[in-house]
C-alpha cells in the first residue's frame, strides 16, 4: 500500500522490517470520525465505555481524513454522499484501509430494492478491506472486524511479489 511496497527483495531484513511496520500499522489504526447513519451510533458505542475501541489503539478518532488510517463506513451511502466518500478516501494518506460496517454499506442493505437514491454497496466507489455484517452490527462485531483487519495488515509485506 505504502510508497515502499514492492521495491525490495525478500530477505531477513525485509521480514523484520515488515514485522515492525505491520506491528505499528496494526497497533494504531486511527479511524476517521465519519458517521453516516444508524451504524454510527453503534460505532460511537464501540468507542464508549462498554466496548472501548481505544483498547486496540484505535480510539483516537481523527476528524480530518489526512490523519486517519481506517475509514469506517458506518451507514447507508447515498448517491449524493458517494461522491464525497470517494473524495474523502482520496484525501486519506496511504496506507489506508476501509471497514464497511453494516448491511447498508456492504450491499445497500434493506434499501437495495426500492432505494433510488442509495448506493448499493460502498465498494462501488472505494475499495473495501473488511465487511462487517449486521444491521447495525453489534459493537463486538465491529471489534471483530477490526481484529480481522489487523490480521490482514499483518500479512502485508514490503517485499516484491514473486514473479510466478
Amino acid at each position, binding site marked *: 500500500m505504502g510508497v515502499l511496497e514492492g521495491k525490495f527483495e525478500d530477505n531477513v531484513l525485509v521480514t523484520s522490517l515488515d514485522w515492525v511496520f505491520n506491528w505499528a500499522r496494526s497497533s494504531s489504526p486511527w479511524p476517521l470520525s465519519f458517521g453516516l447513519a444508524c451504524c454510527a451510533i453503534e460505532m460511537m458505542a464501540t468507542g464508549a465505555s*462498554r466496548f*472501548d475501541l481505544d483498547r486496540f489503539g484505535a480510539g483516537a478518532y481523527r476528524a480530518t481524513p489526512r490523519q486517519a488510517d481506517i475509514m469506517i463506513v458506518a451507514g447507508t451511502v447515498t448517491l449524493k454522499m458517494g461522491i464525497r466518500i470517494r473524495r474523502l478516501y482520496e484525501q486519506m494518506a496511504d496506507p489506508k484501509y476501509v471497514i464497511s460496517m453494516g448491511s447498508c454499506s456492504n450491499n445497500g442493505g434493506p434499501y437495495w430494492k426500492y432505494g433510488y437514491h442509495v448506493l448499493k454497496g460502498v465498494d462501488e466507489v472505494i475499495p473495501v478491506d473488511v465487511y462487517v*455484517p449486521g444491521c447495525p452490527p453489534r459493537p463486538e462485531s465491529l471489534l471483530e472486524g477490526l481484529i480481522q483487519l489487523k490480521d490482514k495488515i499483518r500479512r502485508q509485506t514490503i517485499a516484491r511479489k514473486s514473479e510466478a
Partner: protein
Amino acid sequence: MTRYLKDLWYGWTTTWHSMWITIRHLFRPNKGYTIQYPTVKAPLPERARMRLFNRIEDCIGCGQCARACPTDCIDIQTEKRGKDEPPVFASDGTPIKLRTFVFDIDMTLCCYCALCTFPCPTHCLVMTKEYEYAVYDKRDHIYHFAVDKPRYASPAEKEQPAAKA
C-alpha cells in the same frame, strides 16, 4: 462589579465541581463497565437476533419467510418432489412435499428484523447468536443452505422428459 466577581466565583467553583467528578471516576475501579471483548465475551440474551440459520432438513420450502421479508434477502427455489420418491418428513412430522434446491440468504441485505422467523411453520429458520463473521469478500455473506440438487439441471432438460412422455 459585583456581577463580574460573582461570575468569576461561579466559574471557579463550578470548574472544581466538574473536576471533582472526573477525579472520582479516575480513582474508581472500572467495576464491570468495560468488557474486554476478545478475551471476555458478554453472554447474549436468549432472544438475541443475529445471523440467520436454516435447518434445511426441516424446511418444507413453503416460502413464507421470503414473503415476510421486507428486504427480499431470502431466495428460495423449489420444485415438487416426484411421486416416485420416498416421502420425507420434517422433525415435527410435517411432510415435505417440495424439494428446496436453492435456499440462499444474503446477510448483507438482511435487516435483522426477525419477521421471517415467526411465520415459519416448522421453526427451522432461526436467528442464532452468532455475530462474529466479518469477511474480506462480501460474497461470503451469502449463505447457501440448500443441499439438494434440482432434479433437472436446466429448464430445457425439464422440458425434455415431458416431451418424451
